[in-house]
């Protein structure tokens, strides 16, 4: 609860201040509803834009990047629904005056600049939302279509300006532009990124490469379990896709080196399988607090596929100080990345044991893998893997009496 307090407070301010300042007095109910829905929608869009800013300190303050992206999604949807009510409430207000005026309020050819800009903003928002919620669109297309949403914000700001905006409300569109510029300049154009160079590449399993990166300027202050956003550029024989993608740190070197496990999941990550030493990279982060503040006592780690990387980084940093059991699931023998290394950690016998299982494409029977012992409800559980596997594991653990607060997981769903 405490973790969402800063975001809840900021959202209340971003939504509450414009609605308070613009709250109408003495107008009809539909006219008032139109004004309130317009400003409520713009406040929710501001909160949506705030959650899009990618800065490690902000992410830490607002409860983590993954949580921020979740709120970005829901604020956007809420803003869209509220903003749809704005023209309809204006039409209802006109209808109450005279039914013939309702269509005159909506018909674009009966409008002037404020109406045209309002309609354009709404149509861009509609098209952008439609593409943003399409799960099967390739990531690069999805990203390009996301610019429609930025265009919608700019058009909405222009709509407000031509309506004639009083000073107390002027900060709202200016803040929206500021948030967009902040995100574009710092994150998308990489001003907030640190330069690294690929020093080593190896392939621990099918469709997975582990890339070691050496800092070209400063090292990142990262911990095992954290992730970074990395964009790979060009090298002697490699042309990068220059897109930022999230990757979990799989090892931290003494001189600030980072290792990242990269699985071929899309066009860009497939291309990254042919990375070579000498390729430059921009790294943003670190983000996340998975495995940090790990409570004392028994721990159960459940990893699926490339989800092994945060646990591997933790083991590579030194033996656990309290008992840890790792359940590692992989699709087939060729996908069993790092299995030899994990077995050697287990053989060293220092508070670490391993169950490794080939699970195929279906979720495994957890009752066979994780027996319902009396100790299980008191165990701290950490999960990382595909969403279906994580959901099935969480369901099983809750059914065995493990409290929700003791189940920690990471999903990397950044769309």
């Amino acid at each position, binding site marked *: 609860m405490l973790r969402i307090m800063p975001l809840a407070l900021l959202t209340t301010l971003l939504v509450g201040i414009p609605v308070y300042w613009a709250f109408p007095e003495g107008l009809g109910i539909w006219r008032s509803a139109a004004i309130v829905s317009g400003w409520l929608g713009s406040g929710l869009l501001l909160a949506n834009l705030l959650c899009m800013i990618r800065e490690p300190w902000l992410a830490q303050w607002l409860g983590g990047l993954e949580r921020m992206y979740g709120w970005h999604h829901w604020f956007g949807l809420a803003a869209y*629904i509220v903003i749809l009510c704005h023209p309809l409430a204006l*039409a209802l207000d006109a*209808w109450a005056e*005279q*039914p013939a005026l*309702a269509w005159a309020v909506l018909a674009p050819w009966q*409008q*002037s600049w404020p109406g045209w800009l309002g309609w354009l903003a709404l149509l861009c928002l509609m098209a952008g939302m*439609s593409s943003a919620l399409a*799960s099967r669109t390739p990531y690069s297309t999805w990203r390009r279509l996301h610019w429609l949403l930025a265009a919608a914000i700019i058009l909405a700001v222009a709509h407000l300006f031509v309506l004639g905006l009083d000073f107390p409300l002027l900060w709202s569109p200016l803040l929206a532009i500021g948030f967009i510029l902040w995100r574009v300049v710092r994150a998308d154009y990489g001003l907030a990124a640190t330069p690294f160079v690929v020093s080593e590449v190896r392939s621990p399993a099918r469709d997975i490469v582990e890339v070691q990166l050496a800092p070209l300027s400063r090292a990142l202050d990262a911990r095992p379990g954290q992730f970074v956003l990395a964009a790979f550029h060009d090298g002697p024989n490699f042309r990068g896709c220059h897109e930022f993608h999230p990757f979990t740190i799989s090892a931290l070197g003494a001189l600030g080196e980072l290792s990242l496990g990269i699985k071929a999941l899309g066009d860009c990550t497939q291309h990254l399988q042919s990375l070579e030493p000498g390729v430059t990279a921009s790294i943003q982060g670190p983000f996340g607090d998975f495995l940090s503040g790990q409570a004392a006592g028994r721990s159960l780690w459940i990893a699926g596929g490339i989800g092994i990387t945060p646990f591997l980084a933790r083991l590579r940093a030194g033996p656990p100080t309290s008992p840890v059991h790792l359940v590692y699931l992989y699709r087939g023998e060729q996908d069993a990345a790092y299995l030899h290394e994990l077995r050697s950690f287990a053989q060293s016998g220092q508070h670490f044991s391993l169950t490794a299982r080939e699970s195929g494409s279906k979720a495994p029977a957890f009752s066979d893998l994780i027996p319902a012992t009396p100790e299980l409800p008191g165990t701290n559980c950490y999960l990382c893997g595909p969403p279906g596997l994580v959901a099935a594991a969480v369901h099983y653990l809750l059914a065995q009496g493990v409290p929700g607060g003791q189940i920690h997981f990471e999903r990397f769903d950044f769309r």
Partner: protein
Amino acid sequence: MSRKLFLVATALFWMAVGVAWLDSRSGSATPVVPPVEVGKRFTLAEVARHATEDDCWMAINGKVYDLSAYLPEHPSRPDIILPWCGREASEAYRTKMKGRPHSGMADQLLETYVMGSLLAE
């Protein structure tokens, strides 16, 4: 779930817009303009006596309008429209926002506030 919510909200929105369009095509949806009393004419001097926010008349294109009830609903800042109360405002009405006229919708709305015609002086 969020995609379903988006689709339902979008469908409901376009249905509401469609209802407004269908309503405009029915005969009952012609704007009702209050009848101007024959011979009801006002001089600019009479118009000038109604120059406050609560009692705001304007002369626009040869007609006189009582816009007192409409002022709170005007989308722009009050300081843009208030100075025109009690005055001949045809030029201001035609050239809002860098020379562009008001919309067709505004023309329709304006006619619902007509009081009479302006007496040439």
